[in-house]
């Protein structure tokens, strides 16, 4: 049951046309203005400088999996305002706003599909939804993805992006760290592979749980990855931060990340890893 249609956006060629406002983006990498269409066709990588823009989860699944093989699971799971969070903004309002702006129910899409012939259980986080913070639904869908992978004896792939735990759900959001890590313990005991893909940015509670637990940890180039925010670190330590601090490159140098992989090579690289880990019957 494929949930995606082929992208309908096509570049018009040969004819000069005016790009409406909002249909182009300024690249944070090279400061050039890039048409949205060009970005989408290039997996949201800047054609000029290779800067990796945030990629919506649906697009990423299309890029990673074999066509029409993705089956979404647990699509109806919806967060509830369990604490009745009262603040400047209510959790209810936040959820409503992001459901409307992204068309998603929460910050992750999960299910299973085929990656270059390998069956995988896969979850992809979407930073566009409330900074992909991890609340009950994100934690539950990721846990179910892992458990599905364990039960079906297939690899688990999680593409992370996250601002951390979702404070609107209080301690229940923190507990998702233990829940997801627990599921990974069982997956590992079953001697099944888990590949963690870290994208810009992956921080805090997600890094301090499943993000850091891959058999192989891959990062996209120049992604910001860390535990605490750089401002907090600066304020706490009164120190200048090292060059490229908390980037994928910094973390590769310091021994956390196995490899930095360009988005357009990601599918091929994951497939190669699976060829080592997945024992075909």
């Amino acid at each position, binding site marked *: 049951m494929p949930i995606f249609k082929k992208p309908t956006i096509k570049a018009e060629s040969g004819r000069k046309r005016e790009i409406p406002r909002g249909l182009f983006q300024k690249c944070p990498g090279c400061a050039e203005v890039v048409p949205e269409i060009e970005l989408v066709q290039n997996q949201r990588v800047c054609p000029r400088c290779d800067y990796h823009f945030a990629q919506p989860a649906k697009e990423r699944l299309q890029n990673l999996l074999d066509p029409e093989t993705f089956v979404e699971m647990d699509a109806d799971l919806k967060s509830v305002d369990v604490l009745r969070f009262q603040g400047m903004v209510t959790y209810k309002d936040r959820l409503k706003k992001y459901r409307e702006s992204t068309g998603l129910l929460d910050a992750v899409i999960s299910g299973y599909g085929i990656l270059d012939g390998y069956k995988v259980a896969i979850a992809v986080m979407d930073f566009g939804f409330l900074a992909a913070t991890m609340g009950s639904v994100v934690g539950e869908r990721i846990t179910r993805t892992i458990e599905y992978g364990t039960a079906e004896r297939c690899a688990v792939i999680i593409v992370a992006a996250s601002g951390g735990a979702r*404070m609107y759900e209080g301690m229940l959001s923190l507990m998702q760290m233990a829940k997801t890590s627990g599921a990974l313990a069982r997956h590992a005991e079953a001697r099944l592979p888990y590949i963690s893909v870290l994208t810009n940015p992956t921080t805090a509670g997600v890094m301090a749980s499943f993000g850091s637990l891959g058999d192989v940890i891959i990062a996209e180039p120049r992604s910001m990855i860390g*535990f605490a925010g750089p401002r907090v670190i600066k304020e706490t330590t009164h120190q200048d931060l090292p060059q490229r601090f908390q980037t994928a490159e910094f973390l590769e140098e310091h021994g956390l990340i196995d490899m930095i992989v360009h988005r357009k090579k990601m599918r091929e690289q994951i497939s190669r890893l699976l060829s080592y880990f997945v024992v075909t019957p």
Partner: protein
Amino acid sequence: MDIQPLDFEKPIFDLERRLQDLKTHSDKHDVDLDSAVAAIEAKLRDTRRQVYGNLTAWQRVQIARHTQRPFALDYIERCFTDWSELHGDRRFADDRAMPCGLAMFDGQRCVVITHQKGRNTKENVMRNFGCAHPEGYRKALRVMWLGEKFRMPIISLIDTPGAYPGIGSEERHISEAIAVNLREMIRLRAPIIAAVIGEGGSGGALGIGVADRVLILENAYYSVISPEACSAILWRDRRHAAEAAEALKLTAQDLLKLEVVDEIVPEPEGGAHRDYDTATKNLGSALRRNLAQISKIPIDELLKQRYEKFRRFGSFTGDKAATASARS
């Protein structure tokens, strides 16, 4: 030890001082002020009941952070015997913010892992305000594995504002250290009890908090984010910490309702720092009772229950429908 009053305790301390003055005056001048003393004593009782019976979330956070509150090593000194501290993570350093070691509890061998804060500048420099680096979590795991190997239960005393947000922490992967502890504690083959004795600061607390029983002291708190940081994000300044504390549902009482903790350990009136002996006695008896319960459960069954305990957390709708359609 003179107790430092917190802001909201001022009315109580004022009455206590007046009572003291009156008694001194009565003794010195040999006048009978019994009725006046009795009146103040009655007022003091009422005020105490009023203040301590209606503590707000923010007031409890202040009690949890009181510098005179008993810390982990105070409990170890009073609840345990034969403490042998084990130093270092065998990789990089010994993290003094997380003393770990072996001790006897009730004649039983135990592994004890802790966070430890300091009371003065010198201690705080050594203990880094109870904020551990990756080495602390790695040491804790190494020592917990001794519990698995030599069949000892593990007691974890949690008291940290949070894992340390510093350059070294990031360079040596504090996230990974915490994540590995979460994964390993869920499958560690020894009974584990965790008790939040003061501050339960986010991932830094959870990093030694995966357990068969999670206890919390009456005025301790356990939160996904500090009230100040939550205030800074939601209100754009830190002055709304009291409202944030309320919204986050971080008190022992709220967490029991959410089933994040299993049991509240009562504190003496006004907080554990008012009476170390009572605080110690209460924690000791809660540990004793829970340890007796979980030690009886066969380890495979205990691990199953531990997994389920953490697997259950979460609140959402759409469950059954989604599962059904996914499987069809």
